[in-house]
């Protein structure tokens, strides 16, 4: 067995595809091993003595030639991460190739030696993975939109709960207007000392009815999450106006402790109102059979000094020591939370209310809304006296887009999804 035949059997038994082309002889192939035959489906006897232009499409050959020239210029082994060749049976094969320039000093021949590995399967699975990942991202976006819809559904429930109270609050100014009209219809005497008072009261009544109706409309509006720098005190004021009837009717006293000069917080006013309405109405209902009904709304700013273990996982994840936060607490004087309920409070559909009095979505949706604000909501028993305390911690810095929800409908998303899948499939089959 001569040397060349030894080399030949060595090459043919390599588990990688190997070829060599002679640059100085018009890039003709001089080596083409068994594995290279397999990968390209071109037998050695057809490849040897031919160049890329004889074997592949002009387009592919141009590309190979460009790579070869670049390898020659650099003068060292170069990896081509992905080369695509189309085999005789029209199959696309993805190759990872290392091309090595070889200069034989003795003869002056210049060769390019290539070692290729068929990476078609890896490429396929990577594409599949990309596709799955895109689907996952889209599913996540859809989930966020569904959550917004759930938030809206829960809001409609709150509106139902508030409606009677709001109607009552509108009836009062209407009644006042009617009394004014009754008075004026008896004749208007220019020197009647009551006139200024009556007109003033009527004007105020219109303003009052307008405010409450506007408040309800603002609250009901469905929007994607839109956060703006907001004054917490004004949100609390709007909430107390909407819930005024429930507060008066239940004979609850409300104490406001809003620290002056609170920094603006980055809020979706309507959704945040929804949370506060929920917590306030919950507190009022919890105090129904209590002797004293006292609600304290306390808001202050704090620099977190020690985000300790007992703050809970969510707080530890969102906040760090040194973060400037606004804390809002709503404390009631009810019986507090039963130990058996403590772990289930935020579970969807968990409710301690009678059937028909609540779906049990309120707190889970409230927590979700606060999370969309990069904040935390917790509910515990008070340590100072009987009652529960709901605590909201909100960041004061404007967040980098931790949550971004585009205002698109689910339908639009679905359409977009099916379109992009179609184009991908086309690319792969073409």
């Amino acid at each position: 067995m001569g040397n060349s035949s030894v080399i030949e059997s060595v090459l043919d038994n390599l588990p990688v595809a190997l070829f060599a082309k002679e640059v100085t002889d018009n890039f003709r192939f001089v080596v083409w091993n068994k594995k290279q035959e397999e990968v390209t489906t071109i037998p050695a006897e057809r490849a040897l003595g031919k160049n890329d232009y004889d074997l592949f499409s002009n387009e592919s050959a141009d590309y190979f030639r460009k790579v070869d020239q670049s390898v020659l210029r650099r003068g060292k082994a170069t990896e081509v991460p992905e080369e695509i060749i189309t085999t005789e049976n029209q199959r696309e094969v993805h190759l990872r190739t290392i091309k090595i320039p070889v200069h034989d000093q003795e003869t002056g021949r210049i060769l390019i030696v290539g070692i290729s590995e068929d990476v078609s399967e890896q490429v396929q699975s990577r594409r599949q993975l990309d596709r799955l990942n895109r689907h996952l991202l889209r599913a996540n976006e859809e989930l966020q939109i569904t959550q917004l819809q759930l938030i809206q559904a829960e809001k409609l429930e709150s509106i139902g709960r508030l409606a009677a109270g709001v109607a009552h609050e509108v009836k009062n100014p209407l009644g006042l207007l009617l009394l004014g009209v009754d008075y004026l219809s008896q004749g208007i005497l220019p020197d009647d000392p009551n006139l200024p008072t009556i007109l003033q009261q009527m004007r105020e009544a219109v303003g009052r009815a307008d405010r409450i109706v506007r408040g309800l409309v603002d609250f009901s509006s469905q929007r994607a999450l839109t956060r703006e720098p907001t004054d917490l005190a004004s949100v609390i004021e709007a909430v107390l106006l909407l819930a005024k009837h429930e507060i008066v009717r239940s004979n609850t006293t409300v104490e406001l402790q809003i620290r002056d000069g609170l920094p603006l917080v980055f809020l979706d006013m309507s959704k945040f109102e929804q949370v506060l309405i929920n917590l306030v109405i919950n507190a009022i209902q919890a105090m129904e059979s209590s002797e004293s009904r006292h609600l304290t709304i306390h808001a202050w700013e704090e620099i977190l000094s020690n985000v300790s273990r007992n703050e809970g996982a969510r707080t530890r994840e969102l906040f760090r020591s040194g973060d400037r936060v606004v804390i809002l607490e709503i404390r009631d004087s009810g019986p507090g939370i039963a130990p058996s309920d403590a772990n289930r409070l935020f579970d969807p559909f968990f409710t301690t209310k009678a059937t028909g009095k609540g779906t049990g979505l309120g707190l889970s949706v409230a927590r979700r809304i606060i999370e969309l604000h990069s904040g935390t909501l917790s509910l515990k028993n008070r340590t100072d006296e009987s009652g529960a305390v709901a605590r909201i911690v909100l960041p004061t810095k404007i967040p980098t887009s931790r949550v971004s929800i585009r205002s698109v409908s689910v339908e639009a998303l679905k359409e977009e999804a099916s379109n992009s899948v179609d184009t991908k499939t086309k690319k792969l089959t073409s």
Partner: protein
Amino acid sequence: MAHKILLIDDEAGFTQLLKMNLERIGDYEVEMENDSLKALATIRRFQPDVILLDVVMPGLDGGDIQARLQDDSKLSSIPIVMLTALVDSTELSEGAVAQAGSQMILPKPVDLQLLLRVLGEILSKAEE
């Protein structure tokens, strides 16, 4: 002598305009009390012939005040007209209104003519 009417309602504007209307139309002496917690003291001092009483109020509500009046032998005979926005006006028939007594309920917004008729009936009954 003018009949004495006491308006107990936390809505100051409402009591003010109702007082002006009543005093303009009839021979009434009207007083207002907007703080439900002071209502009983005002009733004792003013000794009204009839009380117009709001139902939903902070502090004591209309029901609480009525119950306390009933427990007080000196005050239990004072006729009361409850005013409330909680009742739909269509639920109150003319017949129900004609049943004058100490437990009248009139819907808000108040129909002034209806209220005057009810007051007239209550006061004439009291004088019998």
